[in-house]
């Protein structure tokens, strides 16, 4: 017994100074290489007479981002989203390498390079509501799936980027309307994307994009999405944080191929114009159409979703007192040819706050 006590005493005498030293000496646990950390929180209030829900301000999501260099070969980026329904979505977690000349390699859980709107994080949407066609074709927040992408910046004299991607087969879900759920071993969804941009003048750029994505569905057929986008953007050099405008249009469709023929299932598009009035004020208008599509107010008497053609016009104004917060007000009017509500009018108010490090949004 005495021997055991002596052993314990010796152990304490040996270990305690070591623990104390470790606590005192920060260099043992350096935080110098910690990632850049940031968080964005989004809150939206809406008044929608056609929806069976109370008016008021709700919590949308909080997105935490961690970004760092892994080693001389890779950088790491992640966006983990905490949602209002108490779930956590590892939205994007990927590593990137630019060690191969002219090629950017990304692998991990990606936001597939498809179109324009599908590349945006929720707080970077130009309007509070995503275009209806998004949720009916590639997903409201774009196509998000584990995979690998290689983007080649071609040697042409202007910016032309060609991206090829291969992804994990996934089935239809609330986030993913595309059926890539076949369990066949050769079912690897593939993506192709072309982006071309030229400087029209000192302030204005013209961008064209084309996207294609396809994989095999749970029904054995090939399912696909196609898109095209065009953007004019103006940022006057002498007023780069006070004035400018963006004129953008995008078309997307989703379909399936069986027995040698292709059937278009859903399609639609939008055209939008955003104008920066001053350093702190932005306004925007958008018109859109989606066919054979569903959206929240298109329901039958029992409340079940019904598909049809829907047109929607939106207008918003945003106050951005700094780069790290904004408040915006949006009104939209929609008309649908299906469901018990032929029209829908709604007012939305959104608040966004960002803390810590937040990388600049893509041009």
């Amino acid at each position, binding site marked *: 017994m005495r021997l055991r006590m002596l052993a314990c005493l010796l152990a304490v005498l040996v270990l305690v100074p070591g623990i104390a030293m470790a606590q005192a000496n920060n260099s043992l646990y350096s935080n110098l290489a910690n990632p850049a950390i940031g968080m964005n929180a989004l809150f939206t209030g809406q008044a929608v007479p056609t929806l069976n829900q109370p008016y008021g301000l709700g919590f949308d999501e909080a997105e935490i981002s961690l970004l760092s260099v892994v080693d001389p070969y890779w950088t790491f980026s992640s966006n983990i989203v905490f949602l209002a329904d108490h779930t956590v979505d590892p939205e994007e977690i990927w590593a990137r390498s630019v060690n191969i000349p*002219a090629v950017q390699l990304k692998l991990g859980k990606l936001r597939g390079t498809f179109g324009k709107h599908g590349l945006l994080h929720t707080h970077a949407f130009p309007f509070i509501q995503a275009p209806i066609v998004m949720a009916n074709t590639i997903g409201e927040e774009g196509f998000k799936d584990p995979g690998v992408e290689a983007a080649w910046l071609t040697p042409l004299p202007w910016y032309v980027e060609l991206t090829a991607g291969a992804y994990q087969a996934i089935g239809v879900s609330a986030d993913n309307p595309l059926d890539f759920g076949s369990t066949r071993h050769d079912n690897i969804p593939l993506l192709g994307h072309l982006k071309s941009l030229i400087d029209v003048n000192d302030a204005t750029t013209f961008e064209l994009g084309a996207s294609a994505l396809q994989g095999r569905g749970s029904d054995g057929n090939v399912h696909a999405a196609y898109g095209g986008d065009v953007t004019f953007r103006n940022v006057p050099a002498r007023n780069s944080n006070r004035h400018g405008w963006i004129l953008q249009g995008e078309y997307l469709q989703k379909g399936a191929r069986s027995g040698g023929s292709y059937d278009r299932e859903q399609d639609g598009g939008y055209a939008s114009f955003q104008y920066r009035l001053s350093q702190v004020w932005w306004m925007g208008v958008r018109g859109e159409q989606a066919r054979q599509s569903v959206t929240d107010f298109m329901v039958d008497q029992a409340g079940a979703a019904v598909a049809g053609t829907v047109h929607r016009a939106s207008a918003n104004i945003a106050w951005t007192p700094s780069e790290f917060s904004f408040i915006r007000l949006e009104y939209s009017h929609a008309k649908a040819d299906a469901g018990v509500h032929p029209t829908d009018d709604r007012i939305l108010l959104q608040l966004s706050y960002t803390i810590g490090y937040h990388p600049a949004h893509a041009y």
Partner: protein
Amino acid sequence: MKSLIVIAVALGLGVVTTAPARADLKVATSLTDLASVAQYVGGKHVTAQSLCRGYEDPHFVPAKPSLMKAIQNADVYISTGLELDGGWLPLVLPGSRNPKIQPGAKGFVDASQGVDVLEKPSGTVSRAEGDIHPLGNPHYYLDPKALEVVASHLADVFSGLDPANAADYAANAKQFNERMETSLEKWEKQLEPYKGASIVPYHRNFTYFADRFGLKLFSTVEPKPGIPPSPHYIADLAESMKKSGVTVVTYQPYYNADASNQVAQKAGGVAVEVPSEVGGVKGADDVFSKFDVMVSSIAGALATKAGGTK
């Protein structure tokens, strides 16, 4: 057919004879001032271009894909450092897909290395103070002495990448620094009568300039970095300028001239457009002529009845 061949050969020869000599190093920079220094130090061995234009706010350069394309084949990228280009460079550099100029590679240069950085925040950094620079004031290129540090640094970098021309780079940097010292004496003489005078720049980018030439910064037209002034703030600032006899407001081509003019008018003073970057206004074609324009504009404003009060 023969005449066609003759024309083709002539055209070919024309292209060959009119093509500029190929530089050894293609250099891209975040700022026109850095391109100006790089061109001086690099001489005929370097072609230097800036992504941000002199009349463009270096904090808010749109990260256009065309900028990525412009540096796809660069050998060297010179960043301003201290996060002045932190809002756009993290997109543009990897977007270039050029491994030679990524941070950590030999071709990536942080031009602020070795510069005595002013206004390093002490204690906790908070955005309650506006869009502050947590590593210190990044506008060191408004101090001629700081550009001498940059020139020597660039000579070392270029020599490391192109050892065959190391002697030229060292000689050019020496010549640059000697010319800067001579010019500095001239600028100091021009501003000597106004030592201790106060000015109000739009943004807190004149700290290094004021420190070098003995001027005081009374306040700024923007209440906090990146925050536009309200009418109430403009009125308060003008009132306090009046009380203290401060009458000179400076602004750059990319800042809000209206707000600067309102402050000056209410304070009974003058607002002058002063370039802080090369290419900001006509005549500011390199770092030497930029300081010529800056010094003469500010001295001129301070010399007027409205701007002469210390």
